[in-house]
């Protein structure tokens, strides 16, 4: 299965990309997606447990992801 990982701000700079297509095994959770990103070059700057949104809704680390999901890794927000 394939999910789209979105990266923003400092996280996008660290990984050198703001959008990555990841191929993962089935039975995958948010935590697995984060672990995959952290294993990539520059990925060590991501915290082990960042804030994540799946399909634009904040999600827990153990939430299941399915093929086609958009998994966004959210740096500390600073709106306002």
């Amino acid at each position, binding site marked *: 299965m394939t999910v789209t990982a979105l990266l*923003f701000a400092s996280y996008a700079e660290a990984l050198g990309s703001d959008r990555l297509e990841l191929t993962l095994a089935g039975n995958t959770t948010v935590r697995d997606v984060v672990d995959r990103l952290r294993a990539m070059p520059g990925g060590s700057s991501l915290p082990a*447990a960042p804030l994540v*949104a799946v399909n634009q809704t904040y999600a827990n680390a153990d939430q299941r992801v399915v093929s086609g999901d958009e998994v966004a890794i959210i*740096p500390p927000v*600073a*709106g306002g």
Partner: protein
Amino acid sequence: MSVRTAIVRRAIDVSALLSEVGDTANGATVIFLGHVREMNDGRTVSGIEYSAYGEMAERELAAIASECAAHFGVAHLVAEHRLGALELGDVSIAIAVAHPHRAEAYEASRFVIEEVKRRLPIWKREGYVDGTSDWVNAAGIAHEQRAEERQ
């Protein structure tokens, strides 16, 4: 009742927002404006570049406004957040709330800005007069806490 929110890439027209929430049914209007501030953590700021997870930011801002309207019974609520390169003094966010009573108008306004700070997926890169720039992590601690709560 009217509720409108927007993530925009142009200057925010505060007078227009005021007209939008104005009618004769409400006794109190509270407007909150966030500005680009010259000093932050002792460094002299030259400008701020705001970026966002755009679609989600639009959804979250709309959700915040709906929650606010339901909770406080506001009559009118308009909130706009600006993205892009802002200069000193530019308005980054404007929240206008009209309510028959002032206590609720204040509380509703405060609710919106606090939720925006807590959960709107927007980031800012502050530029300084010395030519450097940095991502602003004002909500860093709250962020770590939220992330941990979700483990």
